[in-house]
């Protein structure tokens, strides 16, 4: 596609439920990133994929968070047993073969609200 696509754009869920957030990166982009943006705070790194492998998952806040990427394309971020502190905008980005120093292309994010 022309850009990074994320779905859903908004998700309201009850505390304790599981949620899945989807990211469809730009075709051919091998690197994929998940960041979290909380109100008034900077973007927080969650995980990075190169192809289907995740060389760095150090930013995942707890074992309730997991992510996978298949076919070197679509990625899913799963949050189990959601808590209110999980409420945030979850942003996905990809970068081209030129390298991430040429900048990420971000999607518009999924706004997650846990009630």
């Amino acid at each position, binding site marked *: 596609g022309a850009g*990074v696509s994320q779905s859903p754009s908004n998700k309201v869920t009850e505390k304790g439920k599981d949620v899945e957030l989807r990211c469809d990166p730009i075709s051919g982009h091998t*690197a994929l*990133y998940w*960041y979290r943006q909380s109100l*008034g*705070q*900077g*973007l*927080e*790194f969650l995980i*990075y994929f*190169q192809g289907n492998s995740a*060389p*760095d998952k*150090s*930013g995942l806040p707890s074992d309730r968070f997991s992510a996978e990427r298949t076919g070197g394309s679509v990625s899913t971020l799963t949050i189990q047993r959601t808590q209110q502190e999980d409420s945030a905008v979850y*942003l996905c*980005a990809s*970068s081209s073969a030129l*390298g*991430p*120093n*040429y*900048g*990420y*292309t*971000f*999607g*518009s*994010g999924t706004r997650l609200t846990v009630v």
Partner: protein
Amino acid sequence: EDQVTQSPEALRLQEGESSSLNCSYTVSGLRGLFWYRQDPGKGPEFLFTLYSAGEEKEKERLKATLTKKESFLHITAPKPEDSATYLCAGAPFSGGYNKLIFGAGTRLAVHP
């Protein structure tokens, strides 16, 4: 601890009134310093990467500069369409370009 701090948090300018946004960083072995623009409800949009002190990059009314401790985003004769949140991010030696440290941003409002 790696940290990026942006100031001011918010800035209101009149159209044509030039100003600068500040990004202070303490990032070990900085590989690069990034600037992004974010519009409401959208993801950040890449503007610049700076690699070494003294480097400058320009795009339209924006010019980014880098010193050993800070980066500045200069906005010359801004227009209302420049209104957005501007984010600064550092790429540390460990993790590099794949694990950026972001500041909280400066919300810029340009009024006609």
